[in-house]
């Protein structure tokens, strides 16, 4: 038997060696690519975790803010000197949890700190500084002194930011038609007189409900006094500079005296904006109409003058927007009398904590009123627009927000 050289004898193995070499190279490349992919997958996963943590922490801030809005009566009880749990660990589906603590920030403010934690152990912390601004219109009928409602006067509530009152009816209307005095008696009497909400008398005042009248909510005597935030006088100036005639159509207006009148069935239309008047008098079917956001400030130039808003025995206010926030009336003097008249489009909010408010003609008023004393014996139906309680600048305001880490 002949024996050739070993290499030549097994030349057919070269295909195996070549194949192995190629496979090794491809495997190396494959492993390298897999490794790179894993690294970048980790980077993406970390990015996802951190974003998830951030949104969890944000959810905690929003939850805490809403909680404080709903419990704003207890605001001061949350002002502890050390961080105290406000929202305990709350699971959000399978995304992770958030926890919120609260602490006194001084000056009536609260500092809330929300921690969002994901299952992957990513923690994001967000801190916010909150302040509670007292609402100008916290109830349907609010008075510094006494409130006397009789003759079938009713209060209930709706939310104009959700729908108009026509979407409600007396059965579905909200029960936030609260009547509140700061330091004075509340007297409810006569058949059909009803407060669909709470009747709360502050200071030394008491609530008296005689036969025929009802309060659907609670009746409280001797509650803490109400805060009446000061009105910003800058739109009028001091002494007041009455508005010029621009934007006022119809009616009779004298810029020198600040007297606006509509009588004998005339309609005065105010363009959107802010106005400063001394008097507004509507008589003989005269109508004050607004079609967009209007604020009216009433003030006197000289002591001894009077500054009234009189809706008269017929006619009255027409707010075509269907939202009380679009007709806000502020009184800046104490020598003032507000006479209101209900109607189908009387959407208005009156802030006159130093003035007497009376009503005529029954009818509906959609909004809120704040006066010194408030009296109605004509069965006016007051539909409190709860949206007025959360107008810009009122409620819980976030002063600063920051992501700590």
């Amino acid at each position: 038997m002949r024996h050739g050289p070993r290499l030549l004898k097994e030349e057919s193995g070269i295909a195996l060696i070549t194949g192995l070499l190629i496979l090794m190279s491809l495997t190396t490349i494959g492993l390298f690519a897999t490794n790179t992919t894993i690294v970048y997958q980790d980077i993406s996963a970390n990015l996802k975790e951190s974003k998830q943590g951030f949104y969890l922490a944000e959810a905690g801030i929003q939850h805490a803010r809403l909680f404080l809005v709903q419990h704003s009566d207890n605001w001061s009880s949350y002002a502890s000197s050390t961080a105290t749990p406000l929202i305990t660990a709350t699971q959000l589906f399978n995304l992770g949890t958030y926890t919120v603590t609260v602490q006194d920030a001084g000056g009536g403010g609260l500092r809330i700190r929300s921690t969002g934690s994901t299952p992957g152990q990513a923690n994001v912390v967000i801190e916010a500084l909150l302040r509670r601004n007292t609402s100008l219109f916290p109830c349907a009928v609010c008075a510094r002194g006494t409130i006397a409602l009789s003759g079938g006067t009713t209060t209930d509530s709706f939310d104009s930011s959700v729908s108009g009152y026509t979407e409600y009816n007396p059965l579905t209307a909200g029960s936030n038609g609260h009547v509140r005095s700061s330091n004075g008696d509340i007297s409810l009497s006569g058949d059909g007189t009803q407060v669909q909400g709470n009747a709360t008398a502050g200071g030394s005042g008491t609530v008296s409900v005689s036969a025929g009248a009802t309060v659907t909510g609670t009746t409280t005597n001797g509650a803490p006094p109400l805060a009446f935030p000061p009105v910003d006088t800058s739109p009028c100036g001091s002494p007041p500079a009455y508005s010029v005639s621009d934007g006022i159509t119809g009616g009779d207006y004298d810029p020198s005296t600040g007297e606006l009148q509509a009588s004998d069935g005339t309609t005065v239309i105010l363009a959107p904006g802010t106005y400063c008047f001394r008097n507004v008098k509507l008589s003989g079917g005269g109508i004050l109409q607004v079609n967009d956001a209007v604020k009216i400030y009433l003030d006197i130039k000289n002591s001894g003058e009077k500054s009234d808003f009189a809706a008269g025995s017929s006619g009255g206010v027409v707010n075509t927007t269907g939202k009380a926030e679009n007709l806000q009336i502020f009184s800046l003097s104490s020598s003032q009398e507000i006479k209101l008249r209900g109607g189908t489009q009387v959407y208005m909010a009156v802030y006159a904590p130093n003035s007497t408010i009376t009503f005529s003609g029954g009818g509906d008023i959609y909004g809120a009123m704040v006066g010194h004393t408030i009296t109605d014996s004509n069965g006016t139906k007051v539909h409190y627009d709860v949206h007025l309680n959360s107008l810009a600048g009122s409620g819980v305001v976030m002063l600063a927000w920051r992501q700590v880490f």
Partner: protein
Amino acid sequence: MWKSEQGLTVNELLLAVAIVSVLSAEAYNALVSSSQRLVLQNGIIEMQTDARAAMDFMVRELRLAFGPPTISTTVTTNDTITFDRLEDAGYSSGSNTITTLNDTRKTWSSSNFTTSYTVGIISGTGAGQARSISAHTSTRLTVSSPWDTPPDSSSVYVITRRKAFTRTSASDNVLRYTAGGSVNQPLADLITSHTFSQPDAHTIGITLTAQTRNVDPKTGQKRQYTLTETVLRRN
């Protein structure tokens, strides 16, 4: 098998060499092609990672902008955004002098704030004033010039630092980040262009385009990647 023991003819050897050459050439092509694809894919991932990291950082920072930012042009249109980043906030605890502001609830460390930080009063007594911080302790800030109206315990203050995202050259593809108004630090490379916009008072729009470091061997051009984000300013 037994026949091969007779040895190889030249023809057999040439045929074997030819077959091995063809197989090797195919294998080489496959290797080169795989390698190029790997390099390209790595380049694309690097570009996307750079772009996302830069975008994520800018979004985080711009969320903290206090007040409206200023958008301007340095190299390309609207490529610079300057803003005051909120660093801290609170109510003063009172007992302030004409050059100090106290907050006894804080525990600032000694290196927290340098002279590039500003303290402003946003509400309460002395609202509307802003001063540079010249020194501070753990609970007290000293301002560089006296307050017109010293703040009291009703005053809400914010501490901010001026920052900016910008670029300094049209060719270096580097997105830069400025803190305190003086230093241009590179934030991300491979960024060929970016623009800022303000669709409304509280919203900031960011668009940036990144490109790969190397060209795509198939097309002979660099790959590009564009990201767009909208940031809601919280303060």
